[in-house]
């Protein structure tokens, strides 16, 4: 007879005090479930970013509610809005000040490609100046789209060879 295992958590009385896993999965599990965003709000997308952080959509459900206005404490830069050439140098410097590991979400049409601003003043896609992990379409994207991007980024982080990167250097 097979007894149903109703235990959802690790029970040290049954399984002992040892957990066997891979370093990659442990590190990535930790990283992906508490990604602190750097809210790089530059235009109307920032309003949707705020809505994503507020109670109805609640980015805290995915462990990314700690918006850090200091790049030193942030893991993922959410570029929300139109990046002008004048702002682009500041954006790159903020990215450089973020500690590794770090990721970038380009939120909305402007951050992804320059959007409708085909003009002399606007950077034609933030990927010209920082490496982007996830692009979100929309003008502006709905909060659900940003949450979807965050989940996609978490899935991407979970596939990274973190341990070899950490311990090979």
């Amino acid at each position, binding site marked *: 007879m097979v007894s149903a295992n109703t235990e959802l958590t690790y029970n040290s009385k049954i399984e002992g005090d040892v957990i066997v896993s891979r370093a990659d999965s442990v590190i990535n599990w930790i990283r992906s479930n508490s990604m602190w965003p750097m809210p790089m709000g530059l235009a109307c997308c920032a309003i949707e970013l705020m809505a994503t952080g507020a109670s109805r959509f609640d980015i805290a459900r995915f462990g990314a509610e700690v918006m850090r206005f200091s790049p030193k404490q942030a893991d993922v830069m959410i570029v929300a809005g139109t990046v002008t*050439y*004048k702002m682009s*140098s500041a954006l790159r*410097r903020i990215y450089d000040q973020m500690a590794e590991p770090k990721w970038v979400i380009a939120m909305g049409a402007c951050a992804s490609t320059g959007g409708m601003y*085909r003009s*002399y003043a606007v950077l*034609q896609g933030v990927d*010209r100046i920082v490496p982007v992990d996830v692009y979100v379409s929309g003008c502006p994207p709905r909060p659900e789209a940003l949450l979807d991007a965050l989940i996609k980024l978490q899935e991407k982080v979970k596939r990274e060879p973190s341990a070899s990167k950490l311990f090979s250097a």
Partner: protein
Amino acid sequence: MPAALEAITAVKGRWAGVTDRPSLDHPALNVPAPDLPAVLRSLRDEHGFDMLVDVSGVDWAVGASPRFTVVYHVFSTAGHEYVRVAADCADNAFPEVPTATAIWPGANWHEREAYDMYGIRFAGHPDLRRILMWDEYPHFPLRKDFPLAGIETELPDAEVVAETKTGAIAAPMMGGPFVASQGEINLTDAEPRAKDESWTERRPKPDA
């Protein structure tokens, strides 16, 4: 007679070079650039036009003379009337008019913007730097001979340029320019989007 009409009549009587300017809405004046500060001060102190609403520039065309005009809108907060004052720049290559910052400190940023976009210099301005584009930017973007897509230019931060190997480029205009459709009731149809897809970055635009 409204105060605005009285004011422009008085100003025309006092300065010989001041003439009427064709206008569909507010009373308007053409003023020779050297008389500009005195006329604006008179409008403020003697006729109650105490608020400077905006300062803007006009580039008429590349070959036009005068090529550049500066336009001021002044408003009377007591009489609720506007007067428009326009001054042509004598020199087409290095346009210059006297500053109005001594009369309205609020003219400061307006004039910096006109300088940034058109290259019109305001003599006597306390801090005539660019206000929208970065300081080293070599062009004046709202001039008629400047393309909408922009001109390839270096970014201001040398370290960032060295790291990213990128600069300000001419924006891809494929299918553009991306302008809204005027007079469209349906806002979805009026949105800015590609209007002309007969050409691409690789295929030249067919002659009209």
